[in-house]
């Protein structure tokens, strides 16, 4: 008897969501379906205000869709869990806890010294060794992002939901954090769903790029990114793909 096919890591089936507004109701997400395989990195790109963040909130389990469903490993996603950690643009590192305490926040069960060791291990992994006792207001924007990433990684989530994770950083730090993320993904296996408005970032990081329409968000096109890592962003292939995706977004450039 053949094995039953494994369900997709993330399966989004015809999800839609609308919010009440002055003129009735505003459709924000309009029937989105796609799947993400285990260990895949999928990027969703779309114009700003297109409902990407709402879609991400639904997939991560914070918001329930009006219709349709999200399944993780075949199980209905009813509420957020440690299985998938959300990293958002503005970050949510607790300003009243130091780096180590932030990293230990999501850990339970283990003895305190084990938690501390684990926290310090991940702090080192993202390049924050020596800053374990520092408070977030003593860190730069890039370091804060690293702390946020480490806090997610330390609970060993299967999925990382990244909503414009590096958008608040300057261009240089943005590029540095992308490389950092790719290095970590090569070390530890995670399924990543990335939302971004930055096409280059999407091509740099993802195996597949899904293009969303403007509100209500729908999937307009899908592009595979076959280039192996490390990707050379100035290469012909990348540039061609970038132009094709931008065209799909309604932006024409040569």
């Amino acid at each position, binding site marked *: 008897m053949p094995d039953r096919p494994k369900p997709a890591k993330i399966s989004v089936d015809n999800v839609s969501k609308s919010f009440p507004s002055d003129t009735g109701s505003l459709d924000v997400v309009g029937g989105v379906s796609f799947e993400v395989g285990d260990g895949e990195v999928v990027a969703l790109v779309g114009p700003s205000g297109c409902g990407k963040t709402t879609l991400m909130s639904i997939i*991560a389990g*914070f918001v329930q869709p009006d219709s349709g469903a999200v399944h993780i490993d075949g199980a209905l996603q009813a*509420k*957020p*869990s*440690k299985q998938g*950690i*959300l990293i*958002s643009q*503005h*970050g*949510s590192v*607790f*300003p*009243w*806890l130091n780096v180590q*305490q932030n990293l230990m*926040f*999501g850990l*339970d069960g283990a003895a305190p010294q084990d938690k501390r060791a684990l926290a310090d291990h991940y702090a080192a992994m993202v390049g924050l060794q020596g800053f374990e006792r520092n*408070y*977030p*207001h*003593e860190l730069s924007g890039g370091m804060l992002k690293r702390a946020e990433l480490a806090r997610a990684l330390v*609970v060993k989530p299967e999925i990382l939901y990244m909503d414009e994770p590096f958008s608040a950083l300057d261009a240089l730090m943005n590029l540095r954090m992308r490389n950092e993320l790719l290095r970590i993904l090569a070390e530890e296996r995670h399924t990543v769903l990335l939302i971004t408005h930055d096409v280059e970032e999407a091509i740099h990081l993802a195996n597949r790029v899904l293009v969303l329409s403007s509100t209500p968000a729908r999937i307009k096109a899908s592009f595979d990114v076959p280039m192996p890592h490390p990707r050379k962003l100035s290469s012909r292939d990348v540039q061609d793909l970038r132009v094709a995706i931008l065209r799909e977004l309604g932006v024409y450039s040569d």
Partner: protein
Amino acid sequence: MKKVLPSLIMATLLIALWWVLVDVTQSVIFPTPWQVLQAMAELARDGTLFEHIGASLFRVGTGFGLAVAFAIPLGLWMGWVQGAYTTLNPIFQILRPISPIAWIPIAILWFGVGNESPIFLIFISSVFPMIVQTVAGVHTIERRYLRAAENFGVSRATLFRQVVIPAVLPQVIVGMRIGLGVAWLVVVAAEMIALHSGLGYLIIDSRNAGNRYDLVIAGMIIIGLIGLLLDGLMRLLEGHRLVRWRYAR
């Protein structure tokens, strides 16, 4: 030093003006600054000054302490549980604008003229600002932090200990500062009614017992200085490690 210099000069000028005005008007009752200083020294020498200060501080400490113990848990509960907020908030909004002075007759009726009356009045005056600030603190916790806690699936105890309480603490301290300020304002007023000790009593008694306006003004200045000191202590709390994040950057 540069910061305090202008206000020191201003204070000196005001005292000089006061002295000149008393001199020019040849007032028999209104004292000169020098007479006030002598009155303070006299009170300090016979020890009554410290008795009055001690009595007032004891009443403020007790009333304010009770108010803190009551307002903070209640404020947290009201902030967290929407039903508690919608039920209790309108009542507190009606009670809050009533001046504590208006409670004096009720305080005397319920607690007589001992220490309990001013303690009750201080409680009443400082409890509402602290409830309001604590509730506001809970309501303004940024959603991204609550979401993160939800995402990591922490227990309710951890949620409160590591997210809600530390997030609210800066607002609680603001509430405590307001509460203590009002408490100090009220203790003096409350002590003017009856009793036999306290800085409020000192002022009223000095007037009644032979128009000792030097003692009246000495009492007022001491009240002002202690109020400044109490506020300074609360400001020290704002610099505490646990809430410094709020004021950084």
